[in-house]
């Protein structure tokens, strides 16, 4: 409420200061589009988490598996309750960029070794991460401490680095079943501490060292994302 009311106030002010009502250029946003973005951002406020019915999700997964032979994954955003089936749209070395399957919506996440390293188009995006040590630790299912770096844009579009020290604790083996995958995996719990707070991630690692599922904290704005590989 507070953030929105402040910005609505400023919007009113700026609207009379220099906005145009209609135009044929890209340069000037019209009043209508300002109103729309503010309403959109209000709708995007967390609070009312839509509960996506698991039946629908399973049906979507089934359809996606049938329609393509490529990699697929299920992404869940804890903060908003959103769920999406993702497909790989591009690869660059060890990185893959994923977008929602079955739509052309331009929002994406990139992964390395099955773990999300950046997001685009989600707001307060994770711009890049350094997770070398993390990947080694998790795939070997070792305990110990490693650091990781998350990079975001601050209010002035400068890269702001969050350096976190993380403690890795491998747990017992468990079954993992999602999409076309049925396997035994080891859960590695990771507790991380940065200047500004703490967060708890976990990773499920298969026998041959592949991370098949991860719950990772992507920053204050995005919160926790869970990525479950389906193939």
């Amino acid at each position, binding site marked *: 409420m507070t953030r929105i009311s*402040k*910005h609505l106030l400023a919007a009113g002010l*700026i609207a*009379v200061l220099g906005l145009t009502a209609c135009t044929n250029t890209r340069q000037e946003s019209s009043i209508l589009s300002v109103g729309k973005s503010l309403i959109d951002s209000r709708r995007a406020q967390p609070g009312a988490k839509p509960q996506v019915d698991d039946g629908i999700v399973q049906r979507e997964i089934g359809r996606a598996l049938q329609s393509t032979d490529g990699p697929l994954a299920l992404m869940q955003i804890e903060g908003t309750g959103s769920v999406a089936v993702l497909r790989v749209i591009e690869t660059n070395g060890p990185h893959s960029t994923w977008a929602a399957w079955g739509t052309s919506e331009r*929002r994406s996440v990139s992964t390395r070794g099955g773990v999300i390293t950046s997001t*685009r188009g989600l707001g307060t995006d994770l711009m890049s991460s350094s997770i070398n040590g993390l990947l080694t630790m998790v795939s070997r299912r070792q305990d110990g*401490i490693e650091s990781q770096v998350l*990079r975001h844009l601050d209010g002035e579009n400068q*890269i702001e680095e969050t350096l976190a*020290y993380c403690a890795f604790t491998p747990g017992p083996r468990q079954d993992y079943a999602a999409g076309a995958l049925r396997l035994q995996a080891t859960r590695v719990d990771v507790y991380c501490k940065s200047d500004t707070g703490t967060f708890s991630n976990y990773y499920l690692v298969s026998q041959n060292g592949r991370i098949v599922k991860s719950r990772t904290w992507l920053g204050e704005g995005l919160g926790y994302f869970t990525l479950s590989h389906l193939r």
Partner: protein
Amino acid sequence: MIRTSTRVLITLGLLGLPGLALADNLKTLTTNNYGVPGGLIDMPTAESAPDGQLSTNVTYFDGFYRATLSFQITDRLTGSFRYAGTEGISPTFSTYYDRSFDLRFRVFDETDWTPAVSVGLRDFVGTGLLSSEYVVATKSIGDRLRVTGGLGFGRLGSYASDGSIGSRAPFSFAQAGTGGQFNVDDWFQGDYAFFGGVSYQATDKLLLSAEYSSDNYDTAQAAGVLKRSTPWNFALSYQINDGMALRAFALHGEEFGAALTFSLNPKTPSVKGGTELAPLPVAVRGPRSAEDLGWTTQPGREKAITASLENSLQQSELDLEGVTLNARSAHVRIRNEKYDATSQALGRTLRVMSRELPASVEMLHVTLIENGIPASTMSFSRTDLERLEHRPAREALAAAQFSDTLRFGDYPDPFPEVYPRFEWSIGPYLRTSLFDPNDPLRLDLGVRAKGKYHLGSGWVLSGSVGQKVIGNLDEAAQPNNSQLPRVRSDTALYNQTDEPFLEHLTVAKYGRLAPDFYSRVTAGYLERMYAGVSGEVLWKPVNSRLALGAELNYTHPRDFDQQFGLRSRVTPGGTIPEFNGHVSAYYDFGNGFHGQLDAGRYLAGDWGSTITLDREFANGWKIGAFATFTDVSSSQFGEGSFDKGIRFTVPLSWLLGQPTKQKASGVIRPLTRDGGQRLEVDGRLYETIRGSHRPEVAKSWGKYWR
């Protein structure tokens, strides 16, 4: 198992992440009754607002109004501009309005054992009703309690003075005269007195304050508009949210009052990083695919590549104006009307190129076009683009090469369909008149239509027509006693019209004279008050933070109805000269501050210079102040003594969380007189091309991969 995690957790604890103990140096979101950051009431403290914080405070108690704009210029320096009205205090006005400027600097930070110490000047240029200086110390005790003690001079040394240093001219309405001078000789002189107080943060939102005031309200008591039965003041402040606070206070056992503060921080946009959709990812070439040059000999292939480039850039809301394609390199000519962070426009352009160009093309060049002329050329190797996509952004900045387009060499010609091109927009406008003693805020609302016709490379025909719908600007009857040619003081006469008016109608030619040199000639109805011809040359190397410019104008005053007619140069204060112009130096200090120095001849024929200093935030916010000193004496200039003011720019993207180049700008002058006034002409060169040059692009480089 348990043993392991315990060990791990202990080690984590011992890593000694930096503590935040006293690091915040007495930050506060509260502002006092003078609108200055601080937890007390009438008295100052050594507290500061967070860096960059901007607040507007309105305080009222019986017969006293104050509106103050405060800005935390740096972590240590606070600046304020205030407009205060007092009923019945002056013999000549029913309400006496007064403008004042304050500055405060935190000299020492708080430590475990010593307080923060600040030195401040209140009303240090102006007519002096509030003039005072102080040294103040504030110490926090625990998280909630802050204790302040200080020594004040002037108004702040007027009650129960403890002594006196030197002499100080007392305030009198007769002496107030033209105001606007720095009375440096009086600073920290005359009677002094101690003041002090405490503030207690009772809850997260509620702050309680009590103070012992050393301000005797001499003038107000003498006029019988305020009684003072104790030196004690009390207040209760409630922080509704980050952007709004309310306060109730009791003054001197006699008066109750209230204050409202709105505040924001330019560093806090609606959504950090923006909510715009994802860019296309880089398409990585297959191994050894770069050796295939077969495409260069296929007929029609180049045309098809150009078409798909154009289409793809369109989807990224960028306009492709031209392209040159070779076996090993490609050069695109781009018009960016969308992204206020130029780095983002460049990053998106390059990624589109990586997806559309044949694999043999290794070097990518992007020339940015502003007003039809090349503003800069950026080169990036495709291998680097592929290699750095998921790396920290600073690595891509190191790999980017910026050159002056003319020095770089050839750049693509525009496609035939680029010119001519017509742009239009229609929207509301708001025009205000501030600080008229008869009515401090007047405004007009109306409709404005703008059009731009791009005739060819660098040729722009531009016009703007307005029609007032409602407002009371025409009620201002400014008695004009200016002793100078009336170049700006007749504003009221320009606001009388109810007919459509022409804001400007010009033809401009932008050009490149040589590497690092830019030119502009504008002719026609240049602004509301003047028609004529304006010519400008700018020197600005693409990697330089320094620019030098020169401008020469031939001007003729326009009719007050702002249609097509011109009026005589002869005014009661003198004849408006034909020529004016300036040489200018612009320098980006690189630490968030930008300076500008203009020297030359002003509209009224006076010679002098203007100093402007802006705090510039990388997201586009700018807040600055300027002052002009010319050979016009302060008595000839009239009230205010010299021209000065505050200017600001608010990027709309900050508010929307979406990229847009649109911004709202404004200038607040305590007074507009005829000395030190410049011509206002659209599209001056520095602001036109600066955004495409490396220092400015590098500032918001974080958006390159966004």
